[in-house]
């Protein structure tokens, strides 16, 4: 436990104090704020048009649902933004250690490779969680304009956190294969994009191979129910399996550096 905390603390410090983390966090929150403002303006404009249209027809106006439209759009925006920034958050976790040689210090210590990988992953997830909490303030601020549906918001944030955990594990694995943070980030982004859009190659609702398989592989398809406030054990299992797979591949990659020795 002490070793885990040592690694977690060191990684958290590196993530929160590095200039890159500052730039990533700053840009993320700036874009998120801008996106929220844009969504609010669009929501207002659409509702005014709708009200005018109803008024002209002499009917009592019905407005777009506040939670269904505005809050959901804001949470979707957060999910897309955070996924876009994930490669920048995860790229240095192992690739930088390889580049600077500090991996030699870690690998010649008695530390367990699994603990090392989980410690790094937890620190990155903690950073993402902090970003999420900060970003969630924008939709919460929109609560001034209408009643918030809290369960949907919390389930959405859980879905985004599960998605980021799965993708961070994959980026961590890619970072363990290269000395270059840029290559780790680019490969991570490409893999995430592929998992995001893979269902686009299949007919919606298709079953069997390949359509059903491609739909099952799609991270977007598994995140979407969370953003609608639905929890499905199948979706949770998907993200947990990808996370465990990514972390175990990373551990194996580190073990192979030592030639499989304990």
């Amino acid at each position, binding site marked *: 436990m002490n070793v885990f905390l040592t*690694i977690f603390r*060191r990684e958290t410090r*590196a993530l929160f104090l590095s200039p890159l983390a500052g730039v990533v966090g700053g840009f993320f929150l700036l874009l998120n704020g801008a996106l929220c403002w844009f969504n609010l303006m669009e929501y207002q404009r659409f509702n005014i048009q709708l009200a005018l249209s109803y008024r002209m027809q002499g009917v009592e106006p019905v407005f777009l649902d506040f939670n269904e439209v505005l809050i959901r759009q804001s949470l979707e925006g957060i999910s897309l933004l955070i996924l876009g920034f994930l490669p920048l958050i995860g790229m240095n976790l192992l690739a930088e250690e390889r580049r600077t040689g500090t991996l030699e*210090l870690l690998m010649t210590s008695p530390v367990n490779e699994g603990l090392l990988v989980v410690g790094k992953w937890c620190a990155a997830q903690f950073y993402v969680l902090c970003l999420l909490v900060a970003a969630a303030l924008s939709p919460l601020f929109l609560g001034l304009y209408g009643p918030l549906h809290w369960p949907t918001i919390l389930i959405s944030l859980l879905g985004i956190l599960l998605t980021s955990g799965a993708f961070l594990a994959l980026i961590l694995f890619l970072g363990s294969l290269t000395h270059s943070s840029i290559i780790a980030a680019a490969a991570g982004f490409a893999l995430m994009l592929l998992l995001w859009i893979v269902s686009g190659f299949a007919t919606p609702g298709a079953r069997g191979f390949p359509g059903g398989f491609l739909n099952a592989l799609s991270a977007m398809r598994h995140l979407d129910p969370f953003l609608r406030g639905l929890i499905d054990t199948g979706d949770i299992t998907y993200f947990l399996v990808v996370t465990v797979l990514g972390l175990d591949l990373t551990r194996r990659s580190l073990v192979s550096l030592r*030639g499989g020795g304990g």
Partner: protein
Amino acid sequence: MIKVSNLHKSYGATLALDNLDFEIGHGQILGLLGPNGAGKTTILRILTGFMPPDGGTVELSGRDLFAHGRELRRRTGYLPEHNPNYPDLSVRHNLEFQGGLYGLHGQVLRTACARVVAECGLTGMEQRAVRELSKGFRQRLGLAQALLHDPDIIFLDEPTSGLDPVNVKDLRELIRSFSGRKTVVLCTHVLSEVESTCDRVMILNRGRCVLEGDLAELSRRHQQGSALYGVRVSLPDGSEPAWSELTSVRSARRIDESPVCWQITMDDNPESPAQLAAWIQEQGGSLYELREQRTGLEDVFLEVIRGEERV
């Protein structure tokens, strides 16, 4: 303490280690010498468990390194060649992180940190970020990290590289102080470092051990029944002495001018110097200086490596 048998390693078509065998006893300091690419760093990386060999066995304290890696790594300290550490952390945080990896925490960790800070001359530097430290202090920090958990076996790869003479002297004294207490493998290009800190030396070339032994023994073995003399001499007509006329002289080379200084290798016989002086007198020459020279590690190293290249 350390027993290496049949160790070999290749990087693609390049042979880095070629069936290497050696043993180091407890408390000994072994210097690994060799030209660039001789395989010194590869040996350290294998002995520290960072890199697997292609074949062979390594035993530390009688236990197989590859079967009991984690347990044995707890007993070794390592200063890698480029001394990597985290520049964004302070000296204290680097030490605490390293200690944490070895399972040290609480009062034990604080005591260990205080010990190595004092031992490695880092007092007053604990709060400084590593990126603000000079090369010398970074190297001291690397050594402090290697010593933090009080290991039995220490591997040092070019520990004095880039240090000023004062730092070099301090560091060598510190390494020398481990003799008899800890087993140290020191990898370096600097021959004087091995002479001043090591009990034994192993010269590597192209992944093979070409010479191994304690320093005095190597010097004797290299001389092979001969003795080396420095002679300053001048003949009346300014000609060069015909050294071959003296049967006890094995070789001679001129190393300085006015008066001409020669380095003469003669039979290791107590009468050889007297014969040499008498012969110069017979030639009508003047002998300004005649002194026996010890064969240094540099002579041994150059002779061995050049001999290898000729082969």
